[in-house]
């Protein structure tokens, strides 16, 4: 606690203008930045998978299974930063036991459960069921038991059951698209519905969150696809990669347009809060917003992929460029979340001053913990890829 107080005294000395005395403590730190970030990756990866299946973009087939498993791996972790930031993590179960129907955060618990249990797990299950049955006959040890249990005792491998799997899987995917929209739109709503905070309170917030989620998810799957192919020493399917990049390009444009729209709207309306937002954007958020989010995370990727739409250099250059674009897009979207979550708390609700954010390294809210939550899903993904490699699948949906 002494540490905490010392920290706050430091923040107190950096206060700009006037803030309410209770606002010196920034209540939402790095963990809440990660939470929409990771949920966004899930929603984005899932939508990429749906693109292939529902919208019939067949070139994307090599990434279908990968995208689903990525979504799953990140979804397992998605709520953990949220729980670890709670002051009473052991009471977290109350959110599911006595959810307050008017609270955006409470309903999120159910949206999450719905998405995990009904959409993602089921879709993956339908996709893999037949393979589980076949694999369970061939493999040994842990894998065998796992495959046995996960089939839920259904051993049909005939044509008809495969058809049913396919149909149901398709149905779930169709159901999954609005669910993924809901999942991430909802995260945006958690911020957008706070009328007390002029930086958050915006009807566009859910939509912006949604599109930035797609951007980040697609970029992530693109990178993972490249890395996995590289590790497996197989050739990267270039048309597939080009198509992913193309979608990334389009959605990035939509995302950028929406965000600009939001800001233009703010600038033009110039409400009571505008004066302070102006100072916020040009001051405390200068680097994270203008440099990291807009220039690095949006403009540069748009230019690079934009050029590729007209002029296609050699595969090698394109691969390197896509990898680079993927990384900077991920960084850019991370800072987008940062600017929303941290930026919104930097300005005082008295609209006449700023507090400052001092990150810590250790502890529940520190950088180390953040790194854990970002790396953990990659381990889970590795495990999932070992357990149910999409490239070893015998069956594929139509």
């Amino acid at each position, binding site marked *: *606690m002494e540490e*905490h*107080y010392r920290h*706050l005294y430091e923040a*107190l000395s950096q206060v700009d*203008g*006037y*803030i*309410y*005395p*209770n*606002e*010196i*403590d920034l*209540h*939402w730190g790095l963990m809440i930045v990660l939470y929409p970030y990771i949920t966004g990756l899930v929603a984005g990866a899932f939508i990429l998978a749906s693109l292939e299946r529902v919208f019939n973009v067949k070139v994307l087939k090599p990434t279908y299974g990968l995208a689903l498993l990525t979504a799953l791996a990140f979804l397992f972790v998605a709520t953990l930063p*949220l729980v670890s*930031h*709670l*002051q*009473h*993590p052991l*009471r*977290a179960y*109350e*959110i599911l*036991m*006595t*959810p*307050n*129907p*008017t*609270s*955006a*955060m*409470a*309903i999120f*618990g*159910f949206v999450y459960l719905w998405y995990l249990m009904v959409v993602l797990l089921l879709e993956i299950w339908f996709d893999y069921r037949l393979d589980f049955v076949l694999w369970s006959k061939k493999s040994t040890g842990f894998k065998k038991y796992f495959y046995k249990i996960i089939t839920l005792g259904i051993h049909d491998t005939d044509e008809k059951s495969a058809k049913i799997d396919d149909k149901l899987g398709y149905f779930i995917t169709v159901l999954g698209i609005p669910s993924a929209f809901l999942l991430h739109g909802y995260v945006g709503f*958690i911020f957008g519905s*706070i*009328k*007390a*905070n002029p930086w958050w309170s915006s009807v566009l917030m859910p939509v912006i969150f949604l599109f930035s989620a797609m951007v980040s998810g697609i970029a992530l799957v693109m990178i993972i696809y490249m890395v996995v192919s590289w590790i497996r020493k197989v050739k990267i399917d270039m048309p597939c990669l080009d198509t992913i990049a193309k979608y990334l390009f389009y959605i990035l444009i939509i995302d950028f347009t929406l965000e600009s729209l939001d800001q233009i709207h703010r600038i033009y309306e110039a409400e009571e809060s505008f004066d302070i937002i102006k100072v916020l954007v040009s001051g405390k958020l200068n680097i994270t917003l203008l440099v990291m989010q807009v220039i690095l995370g949006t403009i540069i990727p748009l230019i690079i992929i934009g050029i590729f739409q007209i002029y296609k250099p050699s595969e090698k250059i394109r691969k390197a460029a896509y990898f680079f674009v993927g990384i900077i897009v991920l960084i850019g979207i991370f800072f987008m979340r940062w600017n929303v979550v941290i930026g*919104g*708390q930097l300005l*005082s*609700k*008295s*609209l*006449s*001053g700023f507090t400052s954010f001092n990150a810590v390294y250790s502890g529940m809210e520190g950088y180390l913990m953040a790194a854990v939550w970002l790396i953990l899903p990659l381990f889970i993904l590795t495990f999932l890829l070992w357990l149910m490699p999409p490239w070893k699948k015998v069956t594929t949906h139509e």
Partner: protein
Amino acid sequence: MGPKRIENKRRKFFQTSAALIGGTLLYSLIKPFEALAQPKEEEDPKIDKADLPLWGMGVDIEKCIGCGKCAEACKIENNVPIEPFYFRTWVEQYTVKKNGEVKIESPNGGIGGLKQSVPDEDIFKSFLVPKLCNHCTKAPCVQACPVGATYISPDGVVLVDETYCIGCSYCIQACPYGARFMNPVTKVADKCTFCYHRITKGLQPACVEACPTDARIFGDLRDKETDLVTFLQENPTEVLKPHLNTHCRVFYNGLSSEVR
């Protein structure tokens, strides 16, 4: 009737019953969401709200001298940590300078007495505003709490359930007045309760008790005889941030438009 038929029959039975059970369960799962569509007025037959008091407070800016006694008394009465980051109530000093600039300050929440930092000749006007939880009728914090750990009591006070709060800070983000904070000792959200333990025993809140100039008037808004009602009748009063439609129950007399 071979075994196969029985098998089939049994399966049929399972199927229909499963569908029935599933249906009801699903319904009860969806039910909480209904309230989302149409927020019901909380009404309970056990308590007749009209018999209960409806607590409120009047703040007379014209009387406040910014001695900070209320903020200090509040900390003592409610075991709020003494560090200058935790306040259930505090006093702000607004100074409008001759060049139109507004300077707001509240060092240590006003505890120890506020001092004017602007030289006299630059001052256009200066006044003091005590702040506290406004006990909104449509409280954004109560709306936001995911678990129902903060609520409006039947007598109109916004309270926190310390044994139930999970410490997510969402209510703190939702409060437009900055009246909430995370108590570092109990690790739950903390806020002004109008000294609920005092008012239910017939006492005045600690801040009202400590105010040397009676700048705070506390009372029952339903009882037409109280000082508070007289205060509201005799003075033009205003609430803070009315555009947010929170319907506060803390009323200010002499509120200037600079106050946020």
